[in-house]
């Protein structure tokens, strides 16, 4: 009780007893710090200047060139571009987004590389299937109205299945993937690792649909297409 009163009474002072640590009266403890310590310790001796000379310059030029060329090489993996906020209809008809990030860009020596590192390129199968229904639909319409809804359902199922198969690649287990890869390799070996394939399924010219994003990038001086209504 008495001790507590004493403890409460003294405002000054520290939470511990300096006398117990071996300091005498009044001395010992450093003054209280009022600001955070400096970021860098003070530099007493300035560093010696760098090496000069032709060799050093040449090495420097080599280094920068090398770094620059590595950025452009296919080994530099750029992270995939961020997804657009809304899925747009034009995405189906735009070529640049789809096949870009898929393949490796260079062919490794598969003899010495593990087979599980092969990447299956996703072909946009949806386009192919989307053609068939339109033809089937017209045929049926000519005949009669009955089979229409059923056909539509089947079409939908087929499309969904194809999409699922395409998406499953990413989430499968290793073993299943290996099997599929083995199959996939046998079927589509030539087409797969060739980036130049253009989808030939649609009747429309694939550059037809203009997203409109290029509008603002054009020069102020030249609006080549004339006024847009």
């Amino acid at each position: 009780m008495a001790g507590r009163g004493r403890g409460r009474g003294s405002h000054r002072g520290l939470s511990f007893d300096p006398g117990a640590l071996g300091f005498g009266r009044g001395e010992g403890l450093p003054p209280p710090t009022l600001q955070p310590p400096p970021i860098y310790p003070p530099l007493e001796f300035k560093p010696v200047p760098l090496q000069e000379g032709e060799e050093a310059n040449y090495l420097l030029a080599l280094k920068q060139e090398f770094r620059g060329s590595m950025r452009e090489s296919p080994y530099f993996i750029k992270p995939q571009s961020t997804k657009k906020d809304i899925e747009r209809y034009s995405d189906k008809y735009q070529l640049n987004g789809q096949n870009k990030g898929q393949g490796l860009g260079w062919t490794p020596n598969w003899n010495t590389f593990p087979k599980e590192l092969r990447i299956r390129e996703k072909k946009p199968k949806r386009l192919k299937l989307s053609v068939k229904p339109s033809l089937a639909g017209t045929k049926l319409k000519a005949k009669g109205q009955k089979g229409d809804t059923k056909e539509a359902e089947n079409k939908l199922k087929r499309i969904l299945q194809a999409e699922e198969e395409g998406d499953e690649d990413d989430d499968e287990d290793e073993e299943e993937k290996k099997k599929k890869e083995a199959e996939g390799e046998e079927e589509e070996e030539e087409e797969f690792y060739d980036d130049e394939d253009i989808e030939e399924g649609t009747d429309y010219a694939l550059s037809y649909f203009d997203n409109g994003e290029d509008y603002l990038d054009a020069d102020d001086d030249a609006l080549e297409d004339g006024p847009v209504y």
Partner: protein
Amino acid sequence: MAQTQVRLGGLLLQHQYGEIVENVGTFLAAKGSFPLKDIADGTKLGMNEVKKALCVLIQHNMMDFERNRRGLLEYTIHINKVLHITRYPRYIYCAKTLYGDVGEFLVEELLSHGQMMMSQVCRRVSERITQALEEGQSVDEFQVRKTFVDLVKTHFLQRVAAPPSDSGDKTDAETELQVKEKEMFLIPPAMDVDYSKVNPSVSSSGKRKREDGEEGDKVAKRPRSTSPLSDEKNEDAPDKGVYWHVNFTRFHQFFRDQAVLSAVNSKMDRYACEIVRTMLRISEKTTVPLAPTTQPMSSHEIFQNLPSELDLSRSTLGEYLTLLAEDKTEIVNKAGESGGGMYILNMQKALQTLCKASIESVVQERFGSKCSRIFRLLLMKRHLEQKQVEDMAMIPAKEAKELLYKLFSENFVTMQEIPKTPDHAPSRTFYLFGINIHQVSRMLLDRCYKAMGNLISRREHENTENRRLLEKSQRVDAIAASLQSSGADTTQMSEVEEMITPPERQQLNKLKHDINKLEQSELQLDETIFLLESYLPGSEAMVMY
């Protein structure tokens, strides 16, 4: 030290191969070896991206894989190989000094692609040189091939491990990848420069490493004009399956020899340097590459192999050898009297001397010359008490005490307590100060890695801060270049120039200057790192790959 290495490795990977590779690399370096699925889970990246990153790392010889007990493939990254990226310019420059421009381009191509077939490399390099030269001149691919063969003969390039050829066609890469010793530097006969050796007809079956001569004929008849670049499919390449990469160990050995030679040169004179160079050349044939000491060689042998322009007589040679052998640095040791005196080169000692010299200069630049004096005193006398240090260093006692304790607090100097009485009373104990070169080297190496990481981060920071300005200047340059090529007049050019205002131009110049300085510091720091790494055992700078 591993932590600083991982950080530095991460930064290097990021600048060289992108962020995805950096994520995968730092994950594996920090956490160990993992199979594919765990990597994808741990880094939270997509499966495809992880695969791509792993492919890049394997291609550039930084990663290994092997089957673990559960049958999955585990991937391991070698962080010390990642750290070699800092030294790439030095390798390229070294190839240039030894083999000229052709050698430089060959090594550069191989470094940027990791592994490649000989035919591909040679073709690419000859295209590049033809482009660089003026119209009308072209370089013979034969010349390029010859330089390649030279590089292989001196072991600067070596073959990549491949699955053994006798296990049939269906080998996985996961079965053992091995390179037989004698095959390591063997050029496939089809690519041999001496065309008379090429066998035109027989195609042997199934063998992969030794390439069959079926395409040999085509090699001789292939037209000199550059083939279109779409011909990268390599189906008709005569040496299919034989890949080459740079042999870093050999380059390191070369650098080490260079360092020792320049040390001898500066300590004595160039005659001594030539003598040591001759000894190194002789020992190349007799000694295992990275042995700590060479085999003994007699002075007669040295005399025979000296370059003739030196014009040294036997007696002068004998004097130089005695001088070298008695020198404090113990680079050359006398091993016996037979054959006019047997001498060995002690590379380990040489490296130690170089290390000591580096550390001394570090102490001098950091703490001042008085500290350096104390440091050298301790190096010489091994163990000294505090009082003895004060007396011997010829520095006022109070100052000497302060400097000694400063060195001690920075861990350059160690202290050993030797009690006189069983109760370890401070007044009755000897406190001996000494220097442990090993420990100090490790500490400095760690600091060097950290410094290198800091330099790269700072450069990155400068780039991001001034990104807007840099992009603007790039665009202006592009516009100026296109205007110039389409033949604009001076008013338009000056307009374009004015798009960058003077203060911006000043800022840009300062930025370029700063970045150049930072990069140059990196290059210079790398030299110290190399020295420390090659001295320390177990730091894998000198391990045979």
